[in-house]
């Protein structure tokens, strides 16, 4: 599924990172605790979270996550958006909750599988 399809499914708004709209996304991760995000390495992944600080971008950077969707209508501040821009990370925002967002993407075929799962 492409990022532009995810935008439609979640009725999301693109904040930054238009260059990744054609990027293929296979798996998803929904969490507000960044160490939980880092516990499972996934490929071609979208991170859904309600946390909007710079550490979300840093976590994405460490994990090679190229797309983040902020839920519950949250939008990060300018510093966070700028850091995402610098790192080539796409930011979306949706009014849906974390649970509903994950459910919609899962129903549409996004999986939760990690690549290094034991």
């Amino acid at each position, binding site marked *: 599924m492409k990022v532009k399809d995810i935008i439609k499914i979640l009725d999301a708004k693109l904040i930054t990172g238009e260059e990744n709209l054609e990027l293929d996304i296979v798996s998803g991760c929904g969490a*507000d*605790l*960044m*160490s*939980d995000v*880092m*516990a499972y*390495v996934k490929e071609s992944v979208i991170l859904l*979270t309600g*946390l909007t*600080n*710079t*550490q*979300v971008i*840093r*976590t994405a*950077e*460490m*994990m*090679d996550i190229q797309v983040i969707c902020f839920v519950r209508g949250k939008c990060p501040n300018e*510093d966070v958006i700028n850091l995402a821009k610098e790192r080539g990370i796409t930011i979306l925002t949706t009014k849906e909750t974390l649970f509903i967002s994950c459910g919609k993407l899962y129903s549409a075929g996004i999986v939760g599988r990690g690549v290094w799962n034991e």
Partner: protein
Amino acid sequence: MSDNIIRLHYDIDADDFSSAGLASSGTKRMLNQLGFNPAIVKKVAISMYEAEINAVIHADGGCADVEITPEKIVVVISDKGPGIPDIEQAMQAGWSTATNEIREQGFGAGMGLPNMKRYTDDMKIETELGVGTKVTLIINVN
């Protein structure tokens, strides 16, 4: 290959939580530039970032020293924090002494040390109460 060692040093500043991760970010970029396998780079980046965050939230900062050779990458994060009273307990997934304030920032889930162990080939914790903690993370390249 002693002539083939690259050493990096970073101070880890704890004044501003939003700047935490700069050392790991710099190291990741250097490893990418050097052409290391992306899976290896990711292991170093995640484990180092967790250790760096720990130094910020538990120990008022510290420093990071990275030694890069073609065979392995060694990351040492040292702090002058309170030390870890019970390492075995600290290694348990979900156990944390972090405050609610830290949890609101997305950390303190008790997954930091388990994640470091998960992504490293060898990990050593030296700690002394009231003196500080030194975490050594070793990731083999092959």
